[in-house]
């Protein structure tokens, strides 16, 4: 049976991470499973975890009154999920729904923040992995928000 360290080692997010740091953060991690249709978290709830998705697809949704749930991003196996555990007041800003059976590594946010505070090198190594994903998703969101495929004024 694979240990949580084994699972972490095989995830793209932790690729190249020093073994000592991997061992350290593994102490905050658990292996979790979500059935299709269940929610990993809901908007407004406490952002007390973040996830490394190992299998499956998660839809990130905003509930729009009158329209219902609108998916603005899907996250797939090999990707990470959840940013607001890093930023006070640590509340989820959207819903995360398992589109299919999902397996993930869940990190306890308080535990991980504590390890980052006590060893800035650990925090920096993790930030180097978070920030590119954050920037990439922000840029993609800007392009989606621009509604590029919407009606063009011509012809």
């Amino acid at each position, binding site marked *: 049976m694979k240990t949580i360290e084994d699972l972490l080692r095989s995830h793209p997010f932790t690729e190249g991470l020093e073994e000592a740091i991997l061992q350290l953060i593994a102490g905050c991690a658990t292996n979790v499973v979500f059935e299709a249709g269940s929610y990993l978290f809901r908007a407004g709830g406490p952002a007390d975890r973040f996830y490394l998705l190992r299998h499956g697809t998660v839809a990130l*949704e905003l509930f729009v009154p009158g329209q*219902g749930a609108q998916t*603005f*991003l899907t996250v*797939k196996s090999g990707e990470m999920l959840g940013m607001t555990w890093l930023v006070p007041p640590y509340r989820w800003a959207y819903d995360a729904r398992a589109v299919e059976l999902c397996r993930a590594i869940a990190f306890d946010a308080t535990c991980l923040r504590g390890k980052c505070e006590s060893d800035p090198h650990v925090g920096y190594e993790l930030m180097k992995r978070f920030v590119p994903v954050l920037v990439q998703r922000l840029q993609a969101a800007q392009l*989606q928000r621009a509604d*590029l495929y919407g009606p063009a004024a*011509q012809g």
Partner: protein
Amino acid sequence: MATRLEDAASGMRRDAFVPFFVPVRRRVRESADVATLEFDALEAGPAWSGFGPGQFNMVYAFGVGEIPVSISGDPSDPTRILHTIRAVGPVSRALATARRGEPVGLRGPFGSRWPVERAAGHDLLIVAGGIGLAPLRPVLYHALRDRGAYGRVALLYGARTPQDLLFRRELDVWRRTPGLQVRVAVDRAGPDWEGDVGFVTGQFPKVRFDPLEAVAMICGPELMIRAAAQSLQELGVDADRIHVSMERNMQCAIGHCGHCQFGPKFVCKDGPVFPYSTVAPMMAIREL
């Protein structure tokens, strides 16, 4: 400057400003505001001798006006001319709602082609955004017909919503086609959509290709083209192996009127398909 088009079959030359008229044989509604018009190419007689992937016709709606529209059919099919048109203005609205039997004027084909021959032997990435799938569909037809000539082939397609996806039946067929990777992403969707949501560039890491060898062909809104080309370059695809189709106000279609001037180029005559390396510097100039 030449104002005549060479007919490849007969060798005859005809006036590039004079349209030929063909009746609409069929109209297929693709989405709420997009329709594909099918014309019987044989009705055009010697005025039509085929087209290359990426080329366009000037399409004339009687009494309304004329617009450039890419040809979205199979370049190897001599019997049909297909135009996929999005209703956004008076002319495109008239065309997208044209009835069966209604005559429509066509001039063309005009413009440069996607470099399908140059891409032979390489991995091929077809990257489309919105209505940009229409000018790329001939490339896909070509690549599937001559599948052995290419390495890995991938279609990456971004659309606004699941309801805006074009050629849905064909998309289903393409998804099941061996040797073709199909990745579709929409900007937003309801909970019944089980596919990907996100910008199309997010699909690049999900397809298998060799960045050092791949040839990419991109068509869509200009911002999408730039974002896709940028992402591909970050992955290691050389700008010279990225080709894009530009859209400008094309009117004469033969480089006379100057409406589509893009720096030193005329999009109608020198394009619409360009190597990204030649247009990238100009795309950054807002005044162009």
